[in-house]
């Protein structure tokens, strides 16, 4: 993948948002943001209600994904352009999700909602009406998703990238204080993980740093061995989807997986090794 295949800028969106075959999708942590104004012609996907199984802790299954995209009027051949707030965290999460279920042409709007707003570009409250489709998803691509046993097996062997803040990494913080329901039982990080907070990959306006800068951050600075396979994780898997996007889609690293169970799962497992403090 190259940057031009997976990222578009605001000018591109303004020129193509009404094109047949192009679907603009807002995915926000704050799902009410869309109601206050969104990019013209954008539809909404709710990362939690639409993409998570309502009972088990897991994604909606393939059939559920097909139903969702069919209802939203997305076709298999459409170019899906995702954007959102929070420096595109949840848009990147949805991007990973689309790839997981085999959608071919997905892109992120570089800078997401923040850059668009800061440039005072047009927002609307009009909700587009897209006729339903018959979307067909593939089975989940297991090469993109890491599960807990694989993570344990990877300790000391593969690159483990913890993209949380340094205080979550060292174990001083478990989670934001108002979210006790998503808090792990223990703080710390997976042994041998390197801490590269997601924010290092983003400029102030939410755009991704240049490929050279990114290689420097993950390679020279963090010491990742690019010849090894990599697993990224955070707390619930959305910040690490941002880093997965950087490593896999922008830098073209093969064998990069996102561990969506992340610290809320790992930090609650019985008997697994945990490291506290700075990376060793």
């Amino acid at each position, binding site marked *: 993948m190259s940057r031009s295949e997976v990222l578009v800028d605001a000018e591109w969106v303004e020129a193509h948002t009404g094109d047949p075959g192009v679907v603009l999708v807002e995915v926000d*942590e*704050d*799902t*009410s*943001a869309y109601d*206050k104004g969104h990019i013209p012609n954008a539809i909404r996907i709710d990362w*939690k209600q639409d993409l998570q199984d309502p009972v088990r802790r897991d994604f909606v299954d393939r059939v559920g994904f097909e139903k969702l995209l069919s209802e939203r009027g997305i076709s298999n051949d459409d170019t899906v352009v995702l954007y959102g*707030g*929070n*420096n595109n*965290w*949840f848009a990147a999460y949805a991007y990973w999700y689309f790839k997981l279920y085999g959608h071919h042409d997905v892109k992120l709007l570089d800078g997401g909602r*923040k850059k668009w*707003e*800061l*440039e*005072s570009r047009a927002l609307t409250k009009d909700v587009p009406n897209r006729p339903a489709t018959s979307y067909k998803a593939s089975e989940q691509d297991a090469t993109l998703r890491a599960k807990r046993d694989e993570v344990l097996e990877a300790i000391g062997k593969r690159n483990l990238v913890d993209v*949380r*803040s*340094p*205080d979550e990494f060292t174990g*001083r*913080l478990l*989670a*934001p*204080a*108002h*979210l006790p329901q*998503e808090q792990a039982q223990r703080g710390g990080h997976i042994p041998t993980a390197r801490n590269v*907070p997601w*924010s*290092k990959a983003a400029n*102030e*306006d939410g755009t991704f740093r240049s490929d050279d800068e990114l290689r420097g951050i993950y390679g020279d600075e963090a010491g990742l061995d690019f010849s090894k396979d990599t697993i990224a994780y955070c*707390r*619930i898997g*959305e*910040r690490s989807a941002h880093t997965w996007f950087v490593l896999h889609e922008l830098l073209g690293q093969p064998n990069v997986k996102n561990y969506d169970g992340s610290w809320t799962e790992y930090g609650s497992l019985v008997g697994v090794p945990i490291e506290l403090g700075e990376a060793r």
Partner: protein
Amino acid sequence: MSNLNQAAGDGCGAPAGGVSASAATNAGSQAVVEGRVVRGSDPVSTGYARLLGTGGEFVAEVPLGDDGGFRFFAAPGTWTLRVLAPGGARADRSVSAEYGKVTQVEVTV
């Protein structure tokens, strides 16, 4: 970097829809930094407040509320508050946070 319980939603990021600066905050045991952003006497409702550590490293970011409000639950210490608003407007303020205290900041851009 110091520790921080940032104002956050599910993903440790922005609270839903920004915050209201007019709602009274009870600091409890938290070290709260809150305030609002104005242009002249008008609130700036489109924009972002960022909290940066002493080395300028990113700690947290929230969108401004309808009344220009923002709120962070920080750890004690000194932080840089940076505001970004449309038209290339930006402003930095040095702010201190203490447990049990709400530090109020009004920022003009």
